[in-house]
């Protein structure tokens, strides 16, 4: 768990694994059980619940996590599935919204059917 970004990713992965909303305490326990880092050798310090809460509120601000305030302590769930987020991301990448070119620079822009056909012949596939 090196950076806040890594933690955010780990929290989201756990929320996606769980169908129902879970509390920050449970999340903390689940995060501690996970093998830390790629080497697996380093023993990470136990994670504080406040850290998990910070990460959750950051994710909430980004619109990725929603909070159930009915019960105490609050329970958290992912707003939508991983697949939906991926679809949103890819649509922005592949789409041709007016500002898209200025937002991100793709290696290949939109390819027409005719162009694709020519290319396949060129590649001999």
């Amino acid at each position, binding site marked *: 768990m090196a950076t806040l970004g890594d933690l*955010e990713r780990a929290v989201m992965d756990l929320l996606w694994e769980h169908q129902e909303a879970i509390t920050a305490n449970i999340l903390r326990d689940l995060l501690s059980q996970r093998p830390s880092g790629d080497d697996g050798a380093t023993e990470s310090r136990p994670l504080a619940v406040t850290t998990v809460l910070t990460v959750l509120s950051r994710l909430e601000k980004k619109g990725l996590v929603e909070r159930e305030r009915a019960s105490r302590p609050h329970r958290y769930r992912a707003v939508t599935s991983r697949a939906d*987020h*991926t679809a949103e991301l890819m649509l922005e990448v592949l789409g041709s919204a007016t500002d898209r070119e200025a*937002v991100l620079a793709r290696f290949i822009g939109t390819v027409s059917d005719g162009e694709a056909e020519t290319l396949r012949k060129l590649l001999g596939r």
Partner: protein
Amino acid sequence: MYWTSWFLAALAVVLAWPVPVFLARATWPARAPFAAMVLWQSIALAGGLSMIGAMLCYGLVPLGDNLASGLRGLVRIFLGTESLDTLGLIHAFALSAAALLSAHLVFTLWLTYFRIQQQRRRHRDLLNILSSPSNDRPGTVVINHQAPVAYCLPGGSRSVTVLSDGLLELLSPEELRAVLLHEQTHLTQHHHLLLWAFAAWRSALPWLPTSKLAQRAVSSLIEIMADDVALRSVSKSTLVTAIALVASGSAQLPAAALVQDSSAQIDTPATTSARLSRLLTPAPSLGAGLQALIIVGALLLLAVPTALLVVPGILPQ
């Protein structure tokens, strides 16, 4: 001032229509992409300056013989030491139009910047939770998707190049290197700033032929420039194969088909074909002298309206 305003108006018209149409049809820009890029920027800047300058000068005619004295007269009107009647209705209208157009351009530039930043932030947030950092390549992340895509998301020190699993499966290490070199050139040469300025120019004046043509030209020129940088380190056949593989791969996706139905397709230039045909049947790049000449010409083009506005007495009163 009177003749200056008419000369600037004529320049604005020439730069708004015939010049960009001719330049967009010309074939030499692909052989001298940098010079062409400078020329397009100069056309846009000189065009905007002439448009605003023409109206400003015309509006100030009753108040003075040059821009400085005219503006001093305008200040006197605002202070109340000179009557508004000196100006007259038509000239007051021209001045208002100049002020409105300037405000519109600045505001659109700012709005476009804000919108782009917002989209990039959202995109970065999603990337952060959906991608994993590439172990052996700094500044590169990998997303888990079958579509073979590669792109870069600019953002100062947080700039990132994104590759998909589909792309990593499709390309050989050398072809991947070509893709990365291409994308990194976009970042190091700050192409996103050019795209931002021309996107703003286009959304500010969408009915102007020059803004649409300029944006298209610029987006295909930056691809050519990025390809040229990649070609310094990888062979031409590697780059061609990479482009062809990624293009034919991404055309098979359902998302691509979905996107192609939209009317935005009309605006998408056949950049991929143009890039490939340039690589496959290369024309020698324009001579250094000729390129220098184009750049000097572009700078002169910008200097003309600037001098007319700032230096008094170039044209008869």
